[in-house]
């Protein structure tokens, strides 16, 4: 079995890499193709999942749609590729996808050694623990000897090892491939604890039959800045990825929404709004896009705040507060670079 799979996989990786190596202009490729290839997760409520109609929905998905709208003028021209924690980097590095928007933590080695460029932080997260209430555990420090379900190929795996080691506790890791399998194991109580990013825990819990039977422990044991990423070496494309994200954040700061964007573009008095929406200046051309690319991106799914509220916010089943992900003016960490 393996002897058959591996050479094929290797050959495929090399073959695709052959294409990837030859292309520098991701933007031109996307335009020529007329479709953006975007890697998302295999299913995590709120971030990327398929709804009853089979349409992809979620926070990570909406970023891809905004990017497609900015580049191609149409937010629906995206091909989504579901990836696991293990397959995501290969998918991006091999050129199978143009952008990876799959709640991926920005770390030094991923940036420097895996040769990726992070477009920015879309969601400030941290790793937490979820346990059934019946267990009577109130703090992560009471988890000595517990069996912990963990998604393999993620930073959470490493944080978990560090946390238990630092606190001189033992644990039994149960490595799991996808969020769905983790859910199955956790609900069958094949593990006592499920650990992943706190947002992911909230999202998983929202899909349980009895969400109130489970609690997320107060300890957050790591910083997990999640964001979209692209390959190293194509500066134009990474600039586009970065500034589409920034445009969504600036739009919220300036009060531009999907509904009023056209109106703001025509009537706003704020020069930065006019620059962003392309009414004045030719800033879009500097990254190879139309001058109104940000306007299209915002109209695709709204500004950052709208995307957040629709997918993760307090009125959804997931019910996450903005917390660290509020604008810097609201006490959060969202702080887009000036648009000039």
């Amino acid at each position, binding site marked *: 079995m393996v002897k058959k799979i591996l050479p094929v996989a290797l050959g495929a990786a090399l073959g695709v890499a052959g294409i*990837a190596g030859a292309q520098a202009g991701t933007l031109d490729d996307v335009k020529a193709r007329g479709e953006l290839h975007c890697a998302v997760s295999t299913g995590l409520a709120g971030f990327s999942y398929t709804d009853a109609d089979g349409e992809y929905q979620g926070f990570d998905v909406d970023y891809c749609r905004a990017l497609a709208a900015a580049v191609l003028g149409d937010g629906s021209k995206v091909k989504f590729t579901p990836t696991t924690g293990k397959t995501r980097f290969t998918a991006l590095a091999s050129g199978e996808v143009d952008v990876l928007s799959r709640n991926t933590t920005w770390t030094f080695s991923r940036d420097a050694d895996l040769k990726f460029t992070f477009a920015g932080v879309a969601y400030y997260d941290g790793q937490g623990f979820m346990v059934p209430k019946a267990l009577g555990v109130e703090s992560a420090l009471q988890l000595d000897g517990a069996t912990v379900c963990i998604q393999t190929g993620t930073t959470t795996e490493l944080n978990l090892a560090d946390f238990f080691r630092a606190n001189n506790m033992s644990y039994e890791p149960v*490595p799991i491939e996808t969020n769905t399998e983790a859910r199955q194991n956790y609900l069958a109580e094949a593990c006592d604890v499920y650990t992943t990013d706190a947002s992911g825990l909230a999202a998983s819990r929202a899909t349980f039959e009895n969400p109130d039977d489970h609690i997320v422990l107060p300890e957050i044991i790591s910083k997990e800045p999640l964001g979209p990423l692209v390959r190293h070496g194509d500066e134009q494309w990474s600039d586009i990825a970065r500034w589409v994200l920034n445009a969504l954040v600036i739009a919220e700061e300036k009060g531009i929404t999907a509904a009023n964007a056209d109106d703001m573009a025509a009537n706003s008095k704020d020069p930065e709004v006019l620059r962003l929406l392309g009414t004045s200046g030719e800033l879009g051309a500097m990254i190879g896009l139309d001058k109104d690319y940000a306007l299209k991106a915002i109209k695709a799914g709204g500004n950052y705040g709208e995307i957040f509220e629709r997918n993760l916010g307090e009125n959804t089943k997931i019910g996450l507060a903005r917390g660290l992900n509020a604008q810097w003016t609201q006490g959060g960490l969202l702080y887009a670079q000036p648009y000039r």
Partner: protein
Amino acid sequence: MSVTTPIGGEEQRFSIGMLWTDTRYRSTTIQIIALFLVMIAVGFFLQNIYLNLQALGKDFRFDFLFDPASYDINQRLIEYDSQSPHWKAAVVGILNTLLVAFLGCITATIIGVLAGVLRLSKNWVVAKLMTVYIEGVRNVPVLLQILLLYSVFIEVLPKPKKAEPMLDGMLVATNRGFYIPSMVLESGAGVVLGVFALSLIGIVFFRRHARKVQEQTGKVLPVALVSLGLFVLPALLAFFAMGQPIGLENPELKGFNFKGGVHMRNSLVALWLALSIYTGAFIAEVVRAGIQAISKGQSEAAFALGLRPGRTMRLVILPQALRIIIPPTISNFLNLTKNSSLAIAVGYMDATGTLGGITLNQTGREMECILLLMAFYLITSLTISGVMNKYNDMVKLKER
């Protein structure tokens, strides 16, 4: 008359065209051309790798193997923690692969031989049951069987807090795995083990002696009885003489999980059982084919000589059937070993899970990890088939 010109002599001048037209050179020419083509293909792939790694800004080196792995592995046969280097994580995974392959090959053989023989049974129900087992299992992908067993284990078996120890506390089945007692060796245990080893050697010698006696005098010694006695009695005497130095530690519920004893995780058990049952079905067919290939005259001749059915099977049928059975069984062992790489589906940390999984993912060294992994599977497979071929040489027809 004149002397015959020696072939290829000076008169027949060598010309380039002869490389193709002359049958003496043609095969060499073709082989050299083929070799060149292969080398060009290999060179193309190597250059492709080199160029693409360069384009991605990646180099090709193995020093990541000495960095701390930073992740934990639940099942480890050797000392390992998250600060151990990546190579050690790979070794843990490799040992786990070898463990499940070893256990799997043994149980698959047992299941296969039993099912293969029983499928030939004259008892209609037994024979049909075995047919259902073989045809059912053989035609369903092994990955589904692994997942099915694992799901059954985690959904059906009780949680640790509700698990009831069975067999006087010796066995606990939970949805996290099975716990069996572990052996505790105290001082004096060495003597008992030594006596046991000596009695094993004694059994071997007695069997040789018995065979010699039978060949020389025709007298049949009670081999089975004496062997059993040698197997049990001296070790038992030593055990009590030394004051029972070998004890069993039963698993006990402490905190979240059972502690003490040996923890056989669901992932291991599910993988092991599924691989054994799946490969066992193939081996059963091989065994059946081997037995049916022996002509009926052989057993009739043996019966005519007065051999009982058991001896007929052991002394006449099986030695001949083994010649047919062993070569395809080797490939089934190899298949089992390679199929064990499906382990990740149930979270069993084999070589594919550590070296080809977490290490690959955390370091981003796809090329290096996959090459190492391929080398490992290649070496393992070659070793298994080497050993089995040796055994095959022992049983195969000796032609003089």
